[in-house]
């Protein structure tokens, strides 16, 4: 089982290395390598997801970094779920990127670093202890910088430096938090129910704050989300899809892993710190939603929407309720595909119509029918319309909040969905508006038709996934099933 | 060793120590006036024989401790008595080694006249005889005679160099020397008047009942001032820089290395003579020596730092090192005194080697100023390296000779509960390293400025061999410091702990 995980991490890394070698010379070879690598990884992750629940999580120690700090892997339900999301979104992003980078000479560099990022994210997913997670997390942050500044434009560099200015202090904080944990509790192995058994020393509070702030930057938690709105427009479209879909999710995933498998729900309850996280997330949801309304650039609007949606996950997690946590995890996965798809649409608009602003979207649907349809489906999913995947997570979370009688989070959830509807409606209205209203808009630069086949495939894929996960939720449902099982493990400690 | 021991028991060993060189000195000009080469060889033979005698004396000392000899059979209180102890052993060895080196350096000295070569050898032998006698005599007046026997050839040797200022420098050396000898004689006269005897041990016994009477104090003052002028301790050192810088290389090596040390030996002898009688007052005398020593270290080191002339700088460094020796003696702890006396030995060797190397450089290029000697290290590598090694040794960098004495003195300072002296002792070492480094920097790391330097060729073997040997001996001495200190400790305890 763990060997599969090792393979899952190894394949993208190998792909990255290959990319630097042969991939550099011919575009065709590069395309082949990247597609094969992502496909194989996706397959492995599917296998892992299927087995995740069955066997007890088996550990595998790779190397002993320094005596007390092994680099070890472990496959459990939560890890498998996140890995699956990463892999599938990776495949879609690669398809999109192949088209996006047609003229770009440094395509091999993009693919190599993307594969490297995927490998590191999988390492974070399957980390057995905090050190392995830290290693994967920090290297991934640095690699992401290279992708953000891929376009080498001054704006991209500005965004890149702002990103660095956020993540470097964050990595320092996480290190301090980790050392505090190691010193006070000896072991930093992830164990269901957490490591914190005896009395809680004051240092635990300091460690909690450090780790939450450290991971919060990447999870776009309310006060630390500054870099997200700038990074997305600067990054190339396929990467901004990965960026908002999975990278931000890595932050939340890591925070959930640490909170539930190191501190443990019991201790967290005792420490009484979770409400603070909840309020921050809640404020984040509302504020991001409101700011998204005012944003004219499509990608920035979607970036604010990501911050708002991620707020849901942390809000639900802070309730320490199994069902709420399951809903959060499911939403984490579903949101990745929805937001990924939306960014693919934005990319398509830019690629074929050269359109950035929401105001310039007038009547595009008639020229790019497929993209418009996908955009509509995904927007509805994001708002949480029942048959689509967005609804599943929110319904679970809402149900849990109602059951616990936590009215404030419930109201925030509903307000959030309303805001989502408010900032997505103008986009839909603009593209479906009748042809004659926007005759004034001069014909777009490139053809203006639907994007080439590969990009359409990526769009269709993301719409299909969100539809499938929405419907499948009712039946056996991969993401939801995994999420429920993971949540049970995290909170109850009862192995499914 | 046993064969040596057999020879060592020869009764007349002690008088031979000074009679042999004196006889040699007398016969040399008479017989070999015209053949300097043969004269030099025979002088060398005599010096070697004396060294052998010194070694034999040492062996006998190790065998059965200090021993004496009554001259011409007269029992000690009346007759002149010779007494050989560890202090005399040490200074004898230093003297023998340095004078051997001096004889080696004869060609450079008397390039001019053939006759002068012979005279030079005999003067050195007289000086050697005078020193040997001075160190082993136990009789006060005899001490005075040997001191004169020591000083006169020194004045003559200084005057011997063809340089223009040599005669004047010799005179500048002679006048204070003569006055100091007079003072010593005056003091001895007072002592004789008080006790009626001349033998040191006997005088000490007779003086004690009298306690610190004014007359005894007067005698101490007179003799010690006389000796301190000879030893060039701080206020009475004014003649040394001129005499040394004007004197030819080998001679200044002799002066700095040995003649100055005789003053030290004299003062140490006085400790034994006046110690029991004065008791408390002796403590004041030691404190005086201590303070003068400290001042000597500071002025010597600072003056050396600012000197431009190489030999004058070395002369000031001698003043500083004499200061070290007297600080050691003044502290009166066994560690400090042993350090002081060890420094006599080590400094003698090192400074002699240094002056010889410096002489090689100065005579070869004719330049006295350090800045003119820049870049000479490449043209005269051996001589320059010997000079540098000597400078580092004098500065007292650990493995070398200077370190042993300074370390013991520093420890003694702490034992005597005077940590502030530590600063002076080690500060002096740092200053010594500073002016040492200045010369080394000039020699090796600066581009030559004067043309004499560019055309200079390596020093003659006769100058090189002795200096390299002496400096090497000093370095080796530094490494076997433990032996030397252990050898001196018994004497230091007897002197310090009276």
């Amino acid at each position, binding site marked *: 089982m763990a060997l599969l995980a090792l393979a899952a991490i190894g394949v993208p890394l190998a792909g990255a290395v290959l990319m630097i070698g042969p991939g550099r010379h011919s575009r065709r070879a590069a395309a082949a390598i990247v597609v094969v690598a992502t496909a194989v990884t996706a397959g492995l992750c599917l296998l892992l997801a299927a087995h995740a629940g069955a066997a007890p999580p088996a550990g595998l120690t790779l190397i002993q970094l320094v005596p007390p700090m092994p680099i070890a892997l472990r496959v459990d339900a939560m890890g498998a779920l996140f890995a699956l999301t990463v892999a599938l979104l990776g495949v879609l992003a690669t398809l999109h990127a192949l088209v996006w980078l047609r003229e770009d000479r440094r395509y091999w560099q993009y693919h190599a670093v993307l594969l490297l990022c995927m490998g590191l994210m999988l390492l974070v997913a399957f980390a057995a202890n905090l050190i392995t997670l830290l290693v994967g997390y920090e290297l991934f942050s640095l690699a992401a910088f290279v992708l953000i500044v891929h376009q080498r434009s001054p704006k991209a560099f500005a965004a890149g430096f702002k990103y660095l200015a956020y993540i470097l202090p964050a990595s320092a904080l996480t290190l301090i938090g980790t050392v505090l944990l190691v010193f006070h509790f000896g072991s930093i192995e992830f164990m269901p129910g957490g490591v914190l058994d005896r009395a809680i020393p004051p240092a635990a509070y300091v460690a909690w704050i450090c780790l939450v702030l450290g991971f919060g930057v990447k999870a776009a938690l309310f006060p630390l989300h500054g870099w997200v709105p700038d990074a997305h427009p600067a990054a190339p479209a396929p990467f901004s899809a990965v960026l908002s879909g999975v990278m931000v999710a890595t932050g939340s995933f890591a925070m959930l892993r640490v909170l539930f498998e190191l501190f443990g729900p019991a201790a967290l309850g005792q420490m009484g710190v979770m409400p603070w996280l909840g309020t921050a997330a809640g404020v984040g949801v509302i504020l991001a939603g409101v700011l998204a309304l005012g944003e004219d650039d499509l990608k920035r609007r979607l970036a604010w929407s990501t911050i708002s949606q991620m707020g849901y996950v942390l809000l639900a997690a802070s309730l320490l309720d199994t069902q709420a946590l399951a809903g959060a995890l499911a939403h984490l996965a579903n949101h990745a595909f929805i937001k990924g798809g939306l960014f693919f649409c934005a990319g398509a608009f830019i690629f074929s119509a050269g359109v950035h602003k929401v105001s310039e979207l007038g009547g595009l649907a008639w020229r790019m029918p497929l993209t418009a349809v996908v955009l509509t489906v995904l927007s509805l999913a994001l708002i949480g319309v029942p048959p689509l995947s967005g609804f599943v997570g929110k319904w679970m979370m809402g149900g849990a909040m109602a059951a616990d009688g936590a009215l404030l989070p419930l109201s925030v959830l509903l307000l959030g969905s309303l805001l989502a509807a408010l900032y997505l409606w103008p986009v839909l209205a603009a593209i479906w508006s009748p042809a004659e209203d926007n005759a004034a808009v001069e014909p777009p630069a490139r053809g203006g038709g639907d994007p080439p086949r590969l990009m359409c495939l990526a769009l269709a894929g993301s719409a299909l996934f969100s539809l499938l996960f929405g419907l499948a939720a009712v039946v056996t449902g991969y993401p939801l099933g995994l999420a429920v099982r993971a949540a049970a493990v995290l909170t109850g400690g009862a192995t499914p | 060793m046993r064969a040596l021991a057999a020879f060592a028991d020869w009764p007349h060993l002690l008088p031979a120590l000074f009679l042999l060189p004196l006889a040699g000195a007398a016969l040399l000009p008479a017989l070999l006036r015209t053949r300097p080469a043969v004269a030099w060889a025979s002088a060398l033979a005599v010096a070697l024989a004396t060294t052998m005698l010194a070694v034999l004396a040492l062996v006998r000392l190790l065998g059965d401790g200090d021993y004496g000899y009554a001259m011409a059979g007269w029992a000690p209180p009346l007759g002149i008595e010779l007494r050989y102890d560890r202090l005399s052993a040490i200074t004898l060895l230093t003297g023998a080694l340095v004078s051997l080196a001096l004889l080696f350096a004869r060609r450079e000295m008397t390039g001019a006249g053939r006759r002068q070569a012979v005279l030079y050898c005999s003067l050195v032998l007289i000086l050697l005889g005078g020193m040997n006698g001075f160190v082993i005599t136990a009789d006060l007046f005899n001490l005075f005679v040997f001191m004169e026997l020591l000083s006169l050839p020194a004045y003559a040797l200084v005057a011997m160099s063809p340089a223009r200022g040599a*005669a004047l420098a010799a005179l500048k050396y002679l006048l204070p020397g003569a006055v100091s000898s007079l003072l010593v004689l005056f003091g001895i006269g007072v002592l004789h*008047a008080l006790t009626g005897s001349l033998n040191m041990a006997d005088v000490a016994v007779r003086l004690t009942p009298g306690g610190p009477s004014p007359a005894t104090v007067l005698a101490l003052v007179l003799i010690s001032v006389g000796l301190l002028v000879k030893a060039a301790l701080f206020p009475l050192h004014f003649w040394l820089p001129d005499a040394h810088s004007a004197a030819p290389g080998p001679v200044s090596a002799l002066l700095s290395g040995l003649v100055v040390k005789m003053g030290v030996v004299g003062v140490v002898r006085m400790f034994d003579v006046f110690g029991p009688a004065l008791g408390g007052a002796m403590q004041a005398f030691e404190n005086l020596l201590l303070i003068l020593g400290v001042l000597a270290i500071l002025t010597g080191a600072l003056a050396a730092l600012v000197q431009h002339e190489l030999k004058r700088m070395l002369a000031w460094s001698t003043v500083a090192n004499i200061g070290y020796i007297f600080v050691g003696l003044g502290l009166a702890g066994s560690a400090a005194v042993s350090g002081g006396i060890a420094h006599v030995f080590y400094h003698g060797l090192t400074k002699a080697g240094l002056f010889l190397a410096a002489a090689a450089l100065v005579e070869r290029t004719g330049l006295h100023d350090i800045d003119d000697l820049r870049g000479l290290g490449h043209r005269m590598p051996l001589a320059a390296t010997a000079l540098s090694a000597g400078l580092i040794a004098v500065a007292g960098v650990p493995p070398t000779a200077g370190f042993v004495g300074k370390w013991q003195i520093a420890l003694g300072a702490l034992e005597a509960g005077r940590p502030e002296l530590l600063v002076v002792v080690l500060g002096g070492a740092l200053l010594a390293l500073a002016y040492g480094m200045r010369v080394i920097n000039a020699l090796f790391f600066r581009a030559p400025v004067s043309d004499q330097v560019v055309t200079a060729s390596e020093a003659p073997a006769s100058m090189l061999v002795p200096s390299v040997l002496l400096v090497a001996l000093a370095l080796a001495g530094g490494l076997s410091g433990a032996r030397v200190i252990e050898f001196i400790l018994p004497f230091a305890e007897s002197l310090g702990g009276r």
Partner: protein
Amino acid sequence: MLQALFSHIDYVAVTVLFCAGLYIMIARGNLLKKVIGLNIMETAVFAFIVTTGMIDGGDPPLLEQGLGPDFASPLPHALVLTGIVVAVSVTAVALALIVRVKREHGTIEFDELGEPR
């Protein structure tokens, strides 16, 4: 005070003579006068040593005349003889040097000689 003075008249005389010699050596610039001053000091010291051997009413230490119970001690005289020999040799060397200085520098006035190069 006077009575003590007269009882040690010899010591007083020696001290006066010694100081005179010392004064000449230091004050006079002429090298020759310095040597003369040196000799005066030497005579002062020798005089002192000889007087210390005197015993009141003691016979001269001559064996032929038969010795009384107390006789002047002959030792100082022997010392002084050697002292005189030493003093003479020192003076000889000093004078030889002065001759050479005169030849080289043309003058024996100390302050005109300046720094010997």
